[in-house]
């Protein structure tokens, strides 16, 4: 591949290898299990680089493969960033084994799992997925077939970019980048500001996407009273908000999701039969 750019001359690692790791990183959850979680997926993703780094050192390769069988678990989209760091550290170890403690590789991986999962969850589950689904659903409501494509695109463009640039940034200046972010407090600020978009979007969706109303009507001395009209005068969308906040309260109380769901089904069904909710 003449086109491939050299990433590491010393170990003959090329853009082609990084491209392999990029695609392999999509299989991270392939053998997800309770014991090692994403370990094998992580390992598999960096095979191309490990095989080159330890080309003339079969013992070193075995050691590295065993090393990356340790538990690993994080939100998938930012995982290539950690892979980039791990590759850079493996190179470092190979270069100077006497001054480098290989257990620091796993230590760095472990230390990144929590914070990066937090950011990843906020962005990908909290922001991109909600926005993509909200916009997709508004197309779907009118039966517009563009809906699923819009949804997939809005979610996946950010995720592809995060994976590719995450891998590169992780490799070239992962450690430096992270310590800078953490020292300056930018990491928390970044997550907080993403949370602003997510919070506004969730508030907005509760108002627009939950169609809960009270269809009860009374006829008192000849005039029909529609209860929903009175509710709307207090606060439009009061019922969706109240229902969500009640459920949120029970979630905070650590009530199991399955219990809440059963309760909602029972309450909803009874209220539906008697025409209280609809």
């Amino acid at each position, binding site marked *: 591949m003449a086109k491939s750019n050299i990433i590491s001359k010393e170990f003959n690692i090329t853009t082609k290898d990084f491209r392999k790791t990029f695609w392999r990183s999509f299989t991270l959850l*392939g053998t997800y299990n309770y014991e090692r979680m994403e370990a094998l997926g992580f390992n598999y993703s960096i095979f191309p680089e490990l095989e080159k780094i330890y080309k003339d050192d079969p013992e070193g390769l075995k050691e590295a493969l065993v090393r990356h069988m340790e538990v690993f678990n994080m939100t998938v989209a930012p995982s290539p960033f950690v892979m980039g760091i791990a590759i850079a550290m493996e190179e470092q170890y190979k270069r100077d084994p006497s001054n480098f403690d290989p257990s620091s590789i796993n230590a760095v991986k472990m230390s990144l799992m929590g914070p990066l999962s937090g950011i990843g969850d906020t962005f990908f589950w909290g922001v991109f997925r909600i926005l993509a689904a909200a916009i997709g659903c508004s197309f779907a409501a009118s*039966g517009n077939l563009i809906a699923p494509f819009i949804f997939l695109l809005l979610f996946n463009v950010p995720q592809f970019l995060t994976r590719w640039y995450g891998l590169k940034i992780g490799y070239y200046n992962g450690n430096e980048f992270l310590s800078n972010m953490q020292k*300056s407090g930018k990491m928390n600020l970044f997550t907080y500001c993403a949370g602003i978009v997510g919070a506004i979007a969730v508030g*907005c969706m509760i*108002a627009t996407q939950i*169609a809960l109303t009270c269809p009860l009507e009374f006829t008192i001395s000849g005039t029909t009273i529609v209860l929903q009209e009175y509710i709307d005068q207090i606060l439009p969308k009061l019922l969706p908000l109240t229902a*969500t906040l009640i*459920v949120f309260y029970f979630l905070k109380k650590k009530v199991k999701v399955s219990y809440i769901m059963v309760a909602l089904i029972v309450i909803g069904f009874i*209220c539906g039969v008697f025409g209280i909710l609809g």
Partner: protein
Amino acid sequence: MEISIIQGLLIGLVAALTAIEGDFLGESKFREPLVTGFLVGLILGDPVQGTIIGGQLQLIWMGATGIGLSAQLDIGCGGTIGAAFALMTGSGVEVAVALGLPVSILMQSLNVLKMTALSGLMHKADSYARQGNTKAMARVHWSGFFIDLVEYTLPTFVAVYLGSSVVEGLVNSLPQWVLNGMSAVSVLLPALGFAMLMQILITPKLIPFFVFGFALAAYTDLGMLAITLIAVSIALVMYQLLSNQQSAVASKVDDEEDL
């Protein structure tokens, strides 16, 4: 509606795609009802209705994020089977929910079994790692692909191909009051989804923004896109304000250290 064996198998493959998406396609969201509704609609010859039902199911399962607590639901398979039955019986999202929900709970328990079994495979991978055999490790990794394929295609095919006439008879015989009840359940359930999203997202400092978003949507006719743009601008302004503040504090600290 009678479906052919091919249609049944294709719907089974859509269900398998929802699992393979998570495991081998990097959670690229093919599992979401918006996508599966469209695909199932395409297979059954009514993509428009499929997309509409998919969109409605999407809102109900908005909070099923696959992380933490909500991993108790397999929305991929549940959404696929739910949408398929709703289309086959010519009914609405209530039927999709009523049939999809038990499926999503059932498949999740099957997944618990799968993940336990895969723990066993890890020891095999360990021994290959000690031999430095990356090819064999890759084989172990990809075996997960075939497990997904069989685990999802087979039960889904059986359910939609053999179950369609049973379900159709059942749905047609339901009295109006049951349908009213089911329809109320389908408008109430999204509350759970959004509450779960709040649980991941909303910290005390974000509550004002949550209220702002709700009020904006409840009192105005602004669409989702407009509100998103407003939200992004607010986030950018906040970022600038707060990072200036931070660097001001940081430089102050530096000055003091110099003294």
